């Protein structure tokens, strides 16, 4: 399951570079002159108030919306191109017909294997799916109906599906919404574990600042444009940020990070 990639957490490489990015939906300017970068192989969080354009920003990065400006993807060799990397995506809410007859295994197969599910699912794919579901600690749902899952279980199945894409960049839209504290903590820890193993770049939207402080190593604060960007310890405690967003962030305990990067650049 592992890819041979550069895995340090120094942020010297950039996975996504945004320069003067503007997005207009209809006549409404949602994002204006956004300039930011997402470091390679790390966890970056996008924070901001409701209606700040967080989801719009991720959808633009995923290639769903037209934009003006520069949107480039970097690789390990520090060269940039507009070629889209392999994305894994976990949407905020999966609005689907809950009564549809579809098992979790079939759902996982739907995006990944060609052989139609009415001809049965191969044993090798079943093994692969079990492996991923086990790693998100949700193996027991493999033969359940997708519509019968709880919010937390569905979230994990979606995470497993995104991981099965073997993504270079994984994008999560509020992974913690609708999941209890324990589920949220588990989700973040799992992602951290996978990131170390597989070396993908993680980009997530979050409302939960204590979670951001604990798990993210880079934060982008937006509200139509970028207000602050950088290390969570600096960004989340700045007075200007509190004034802009009206956040109560005094109580957040920032964990100390393990030793710096040892690789040579």
């Amino acid at each position, binding site marked *: 399951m592992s890819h041979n990639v550069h895995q340090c957490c120094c942020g010297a490489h950039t996975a996504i570079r945004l320069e003067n990015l503007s997005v207009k939906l209809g006549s409404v300017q949602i994002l204006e002159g956004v300039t930011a970068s997402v470091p390679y192989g790390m966890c970056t969080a996008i924070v901001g108030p409701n209606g700040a354009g967080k989801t719009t920003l991720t959808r633009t990065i995923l*290639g*769903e919306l037209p934009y003006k400006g520069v949107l480039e993807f970097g690789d390990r060799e520090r060269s940039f191109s507009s070629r889209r990397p392999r*994305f894994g995506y976990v*949407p905020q809410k999966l609005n689907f017909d809950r009564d*549809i007859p579809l098992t979790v295994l*079939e759902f996982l197969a739907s995006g990944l294997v060609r052989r139609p599910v009415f001809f049965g*699912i191969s044993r090798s794919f079943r093994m692969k799916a079990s492996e991923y579901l086990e790693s998100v600690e949700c193996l027991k749902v493999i033969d359940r109906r997708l519509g019968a899952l709880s919010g937390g279980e569905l979230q994990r199945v979606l995470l497993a599906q995104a991981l099965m894409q073997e993504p270079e960049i994984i994008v999560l839209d509020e992974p913690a919404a609708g999941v209890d504290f324990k589920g949220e903590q588990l989700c973040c820890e799992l992602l951290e574990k996978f990131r170390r193993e597989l070396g993908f770049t993680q980009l997530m939207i979050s409302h939960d600042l204590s979670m951001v402080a604990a798990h993210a190593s880079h934060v982008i604060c937006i509200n139509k444009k970028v207000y602050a960007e950088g290390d969570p310890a600096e960004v989340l405690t700045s007075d200007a940020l509190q004034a802009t967003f009206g956040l109560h962030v005094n109580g957040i305990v920032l964990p100390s990070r393990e030793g710096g990067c040892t690789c040579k650049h």
Partner: protein
Amino acid sequence: MQTLMDLLCSWVSLLPFDCLQLRFMQEAFLCILLCAPLAAAAGTQVVNFRMSFFSDAIGHSAFAGVAIGLIIGVSPDWTLPVLALGIGLGIMALKKCSSLSSDTVIGVFFSCVVAFGLALASRIPSMVKDTQVFLYGDILTVSNREILTLFVLSVVFYGFEIFSYNRLIAIGIHEQLARTHRIRVTWYQYIHVGLLTLVVVFCVKAVGVLLVTALLIVPAAAARNLSRSSGGMFWFSVLTGLISGVAGLLISAQDWAGTAAGATIVLCACLIFVISLGTGLFKRKRKI
């Protein structure tokens, strides 16, 4: 072609039913063997992705297709599928680029096409007879060429289903998710809608405009009641379609029944649906 049909018909005549000794019944039987499972297979997606109104609209475009054919002097065998394809793809395109909801878009196309067909039909006196055929269907007068067309369409449609059944599920669950996971959503959607349109059009001959949607959705709805997996639903649906098609055709030919074939087929499918409804409820209760 003719010898092949003769061979197939002689096989059908081996079945132990008196009514199947007649040539036109043998041809109708072959037609329903192709048509009913095809419609039922297409129906699984129509039911799961809520497209029954769409297939209804396509079915109703038959009037306009026939009327245009009569006016410009081209056989309706050509104008009907071409117009239906235009409408099917047009609905898809408008749905993609406008902010209107899909049932509104379909509703607008639906009324346009029906009004157009009726307006044309009212100008042509000879149209009344043709209209009847399309309203109620006439499987007993199916021609060899129509059977061949259905066969080719079946091969193409099943081929497409095998190639893209999984992808269509992914798109049906969440379009954006499918797109970011590198599925060419638009491509699949247009091809699917195009083929679905052709299936509907060629099934109009069997059961008529009024009942064509039933041929698609009733078997699939029954299958949905009975199955919990998507693969299971597909086979249940095809089986239900096949059973109701054959049973409906044979019953309609009995002396004591003497009913229209199309209507009898749909009634058989509805009966299976009612049974499946009961079974489904019973299953659900037991689970709780």
